[in-house]
């Protein structure tokens, strides 16, 4: 299984790291029904660079 270097997750958890537009979290982001609308605007943000992975 591919794994990012161990320190990265801790680093991402210590501060608000972004790709220039979207905040990149160390762990998965929990999305409730009420968060969806806000999150869709994050997905469509034109300056976003990181891909977003959504398991169902």
């Amino acid at each position: 299984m591919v794994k990012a270097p161990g320190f990265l997750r801790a680093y991402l958890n210590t501060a608000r790291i972004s790709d220039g537009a979207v905040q990149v979290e160390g762990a998965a982001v929990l999305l409730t029904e009420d968060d969806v609308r806000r999150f869709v605007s994050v997905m469509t943000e034109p300056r976003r660079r990181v891909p977003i992975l959504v398991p169902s």
Partner: protein
Amino acid sequence: MARERTDQLADGVARAGLVVRLADLRAQDRFNEAMGPELGVFGGAIRTYFAPFDPAGERYPRRHPPMSAAAIRNRGTAALDRIVDGTIGGTAHRQFPDDVRRTLDVVHRVLAGRAEPGEIVDAAAPRPSKVDFTREEMRRRMMAMTRRPVVPKAEAVTPAKAAVETTAETAQSVADLVVKELRGELETALGLATSSQIADDSGRLLREIRVLGAHLSGLRDIVMERRGDGPATGTEQNLRDEHRLLNDVLPR
């Protein structure tokens, strides 16, 4: 199980991607509603949404690849690896900086032994764009229009002669410049000067015109008087002579 997969993904793509966990089915339904019919994710699949992303205007939904639940089930960790690889690969693609892009072709040719390393230097020099060229051209033309004053140089070999020549040249260039650039203005100024002079002497001019007018009317009176005497051949000849004389005397 789903949570485990999500955490694995988050570990794999840390910093290179953002992993979302939909809290429940209602959140998933709401999410799919926002994505539209072609871009949703359901049934245990995992979908990667690359940037830029616009669910309303996306013409190629497959650009945001889903991995089906069946594939994940069958291939297990390998399937997740593939998703992470795709994510990192999708993030890694960036446009090279300008200087790298300019030299890339030459570097390839050098590596292939079809070009000399020195050619990279030429390729690395920024090429002037069309706009820059026209600007440069404009500047050059404007500079050409401006004549530089010829300053006599102190360290000239024959200072006196050089000074004379340069002075003559300067005078010539100034004269040229004056003739070329100031012609219109000079003509206007001269016109104004003459008209003002006329205004100063207008009294005298008016008097002369009146005198001339008086002379002319006197001559006309004489001519009319003679015509009234009857058309004698001798008189007519005299009249013709007078007319010719008048024509000769009067300024045209």
